[in-house]
């Protein structure tokens, strides 16, 4: 019921785009600094720009693939289970981690899947904990008596 997210099939595009942006901007920062530092003096600015042009879209693509896959599996799991709870994200994380490492064989895929599922479990748990922590306790609310007539 989160009004900031689109419902299920369309949210995959949003997730992909959001993750791509994160990867591209983060990659620009990271590879910019790396290219700057690893270039000879006098060519540092162009070295940074070259590194960014070469590598930041790649990192963005990697992040985007992760986000898109996660969104796909999340929607698939939601459709199958017909429930909305944190387990959807954990199962989707498991499949995402496995799918991304499947080229490395069974063991590598298994380890990556478990790691990604644990990461998402931690994220969901922190979300639940923060929601409870930051929820305002029921304060004595002032009920305005001015416009309320009386029964008698």
């Amino acid at each position, binding site marked *: *019921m989160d009004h900031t997210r689109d*419902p299920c099939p369309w949210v995959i595009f949003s997730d992909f785009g959001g993750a791509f942006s994160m990867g591209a901007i983060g990659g620009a920062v990271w590879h910019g600094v790396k290219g700057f530092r690893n270039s000879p003096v006098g060519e540092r600015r162009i070295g940074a720009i070259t590194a960014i042009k070469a590598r930041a879209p790649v990192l963005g693509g990697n992040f985007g693939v992760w986000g898109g896959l996660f969104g796909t599996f999340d929607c698939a799991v939601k459709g199958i289970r017909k429930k909305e709870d944190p387990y959807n994200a954990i199962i989707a994380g498991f499949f995402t981690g496995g799918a991304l490492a499947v080229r490395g064989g069974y063991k590598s895929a298994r380890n990556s899947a478990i790691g990604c599922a644990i990461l998402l479990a931690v994220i969901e748990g922190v979300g639940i904990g923060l*929601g*409870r922590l930051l*929820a305002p306790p*029921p*304060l004595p609310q002032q009920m*305005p008596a001015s*416009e309320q007539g009386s029964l008698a």
Partner: protein
Amino acid sequence: MIAGRAILRSSHANLQSLRALPSPTLRYPTRFHSTSSLLRTPRLRRCNWPLPLSQVSHRGYATTPLPKEQNPVSETSSGTSESADSAGAPQEPNPDAASAEEPVPRFDPRTLLDQGIPPTPDQYNTSLATKPDPTGSERSRDPIKAAQPRGSGGGNNEYVSSTDRKRARLASILFVSIVAGTIGAAVYLGRNWETQAELDAHPDTPNGWGPLLFYNRISARLTEVLDYYNLPIADKLLPDPIEETYRPYTLVLSLEDMLIHSEWTREHGWRTAKRPGLEYFLTYLSQYYEIVIFTSQPNPIAAPITAKLDPYHMYYQLFREATKYKGGKYIKDLSYLNRDLSKIIMIDTKPEAWSEQPENAIKMKPWNGDPRDKELIALLPFLEFIAAMQHVDLREDLKSFPEGSHIPTEFAKRDAIARAELKKKLEEERKSKGQGAGGGLLASLLGLQPKTQREEKLPQDLVRERGQLWYDQVSRNLKEHGDEILEADKKAQEEMWGGQTTSLSRLLTEGMPQPQIPPLPSSEEQSKQLPVSKK
């Protein structure tokens, strides 16, 4: 690399061949690629030459005589005949070495190892690994060797570096500590209840020794830890009733698919619709009931919606933090509401919400956004009737309707029966008392309603008329002064929160910024507070 190794293997004693190596770095190979993963020698970082130069030939061979008990065995793990030959070659005692004084260039892999120069695999295999270990001291010192069955030491010529030995030791220490920790934690968590209060709090998990009792106590203690997340955020979700806003009854309403409905389309995005008659329903009933909007959506998501439904703060708002989480579902437990359970009615669409107190609930079907829906305002006559008749226990009223029946139609039927009976009674009275019982001419001159019309009203009709007058008055008031009230609220908010700046350091040291709550009312006003009704 490979060429250098082959050359070394074939004639490592041959100084000339060593000179023929392509580069000096390959003289002593820094990495062996063997079939066993344990055979890893550390990369040479520095040259360890503790021997004085006089004792060392310029090729790096030790020139001290070998100890006599060394048993050179020519068998090696590598199968080439070349290596077999050459491995045996340096071990054969040179006739010249019989004289112990003469420094004979012997290739003693053990001494080379002491000096930090790793030998080739064959050299190591032929001399060191196959030495018998009579005292067994080496096995006790080396955890990897100790793990291998005896007797296989002869065939197992693995080289175990000190790093591997340390890792193996650490792994075994960790394993033992984990097992011990788990057992210790189980024993500690499953210990008997310490105080009488604890024992009373858990009547079904008594003290005692036994695996089932232990397990019960462990699970009881662990669920207590999770109670912070599973139980409602406070024991009293609503404040104590005060005189200005006292209402005899409480109405708990769900939000999603009952009061509003949200829908997403590609063209318009998210849109939220209010149920037909919603504002009239809420405003009208707020004279008889305390209205609580209790939703299982989280606070950040649902608070903007309820803020729009309730701009003048006339209703209480409770969110997901006020629900109980059990079995993967959000349960609205009314016993946390700090109100008398016999005076609460809950209207909800989800079975899990009323699972704790199903006798207090009006069970409705979810609303799908249909603008022709009339279910909500159809409940008005029934709810007003209860309040008008000042019923003591609302649960009895709800029980009087058969399970699964539609309450508005049922109530309308009963209402029609009651009115028919009243009409019949009045007709009988009129017949028995004769004409003119209503006051006739005098009544019509004075503008009074004829008695029949007055008497045909049931008490709830009178209450309804008064209620509608109240509603008219309140809605007019809100229309005229609504903006002023909002402005005053905004100013009060600014007074509470305004001028407060917080920084990261202040957040960490002082916590979240607190509002400056205006001073409490004087003691005279406080004494007007009504006592909290006991359940």
